[in-house]
């Protein structure tokens, strides 16, 4: 190949590599800065960077405070049906040997949180009482799933 062609190809090849890396870095930055784009409702908290762009959620969404073992509790906004368990397909994943893979399901209706056991081995309790069927959980009440405590906030 003539020298000029070699040089053009060299520059194009390097440009394509760095173009790839640039767009990858940009996509990663957008992912870290913006609201989580994945279909994972409990991570979908309003971005702190967005300023006034995000309208304040109304009414105040209900949250589940999930505490497993000695770890710090994690807050999960509840908007829809969320299956809790230690299986890979659970929406709220808990690392809890005493829970089942798909242990129970939470949902929101009539402004309250409801829970229903999904045929788990160790059962589900609300404030110490084992539940049968879909049960209403008021704010401040605690659901036990295996050794995990879930409190409605």
């Amino acid at each position: 190949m003539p020298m000029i062609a070699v040089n053009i190809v060299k520059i194009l090849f390097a440009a394509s590599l760095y173009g790839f890396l640039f767009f990858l870095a940009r996509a990663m930055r957008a992912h870290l800065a913006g609201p989580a784009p994945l279909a994972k409702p409990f991570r979908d908290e309003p971005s702190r960077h967005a300023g006034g762009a995000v309208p304040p959620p109304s009414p105040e969404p209900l949250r589940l405070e999930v505490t497993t073992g000695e770890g710090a509790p994690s807050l999960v906004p509840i908007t829809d049906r969320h299956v809790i368990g230690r299986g890979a397909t659970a929406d709220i994943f808990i690392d809890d040997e005493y829970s089942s893979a798909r242990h129970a399901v939470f949902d929101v209706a009539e402004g309250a949180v409801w829970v229903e056991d999904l045929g788990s081995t160790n059962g589900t309790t609300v404030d110490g009482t084992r539940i049968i069927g879909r049960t209403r959980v008021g704010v401040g009440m605690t659901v036990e799933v295996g050794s995990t405590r879930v409190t409605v906030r």
Partner: protein
Amino acid sequence: MTARTESAFLAAAALVAGGGTAVVTVAAGEGVTIDAPIAVLAFLMAFGGVLAAVRVWAPRGTRFLLPPVALLAALGSVEIFRIDRDLGRLQRLWLLVAAGVAVITLGLLRTRGTVVLRRFRYLFLAGALILLLLPLLPSGLPLGGATVNGSRLWVQLEVGRRTLSFQPGEGAKVLLVVFFASYLAERRHALAALPRRLGPVALPEPRQLLPILLAFGLSSGVLVYEGDLGASILLFGVFVVMLYAATERPFYLAAGGALVAGGAWAASRAFGRVAVRVEAWLHPFEHYTGSGYQVAQGVFALGDAGLLGTGLGSGSPYLIPAAATDFVFVAIVEETGLAGGFAVLAAFGFLLTVGVGIALRAGGAFRSLLAMGLSITLALQTVLIVGGVLRLLPLTGVTLPFVSYGGSSLLANFAIVALLEQISHEERA
């Protein structure tokens, strides 16, 4: 990043592979051959398959892992094809097989998740030890060991008239990381306790030092009986970093460092081949006609590179012994220059960032340690071989993950990608 963006990155990597291949054949005066479209097709099939498996079986897996892997594989396959056409075609085939391994791994873990691996940990340990011992089988049997360049790392399996060679150590590496993660997740509290004191230094109970000494013994065994410095350092290094990650006790880093320093000093005294490596590293030009030839050729190739290199297909990387495996980084730098070298390192930087991010967000100690161990395996391997060919470290014959030629290496590293995607899928909020 959306599904479309991720696919676009993988398609772009396939085009880099095809475009690079076309440049290589044009530079050789052959015009654009059938190899370029075949390379694009092989990449689309391999990464499309892995992507589909991830989206179906681990839909919440990160979208940032496959793009850097695809870019590295593309650069590697172009440069391997440039050095040796037949190796380049074989590497494409291995890429498809490796993608199959990733798909199978994801499929096997799709319902029960990575946690199920804990149940089989002693099976994995036994499997890893058997794989590590396989090359010591006598040569000549239908399944026998083989000595290549003084290291006994290879196993040859005779199927009819053909001989299949593979490096079982690559598979052992992944199995051992799974075992370490499972073991450390359970024992980390006992290991983190430092109840004894020696002056200002807090020490663990002496019996808690047994695991680190066993790991050191295993690594030394690999060095003594198989003559493999790279695998030996890799195994021990990964174990020490995982031990540190599990316990958060710098004591273990110091203890591991002291063992490596002592072991390295003893090995350079006791084993001729380690002393030769050190000598070739420090004074390659004094041993130019002998042990220093490879390192010296690597230095010449680097010196030829400049900012943009000689151009794909216009350099002479084939002059370096083992250019397609150990020295593939130097071959890439010779032909694409400092720019290409930094692009490779940046892609590894992305890979490590994403891997450690998965480890930090993973639910539970086992998943976290597994993701950390797998990421560190890739990172340490990269540092060892890139440092080795750049003369920052003595040369150790480990592969550059996803870039070097080698079926066993690609298979093992794609299994790592599948495991990382699965852990990422299982992460909690």
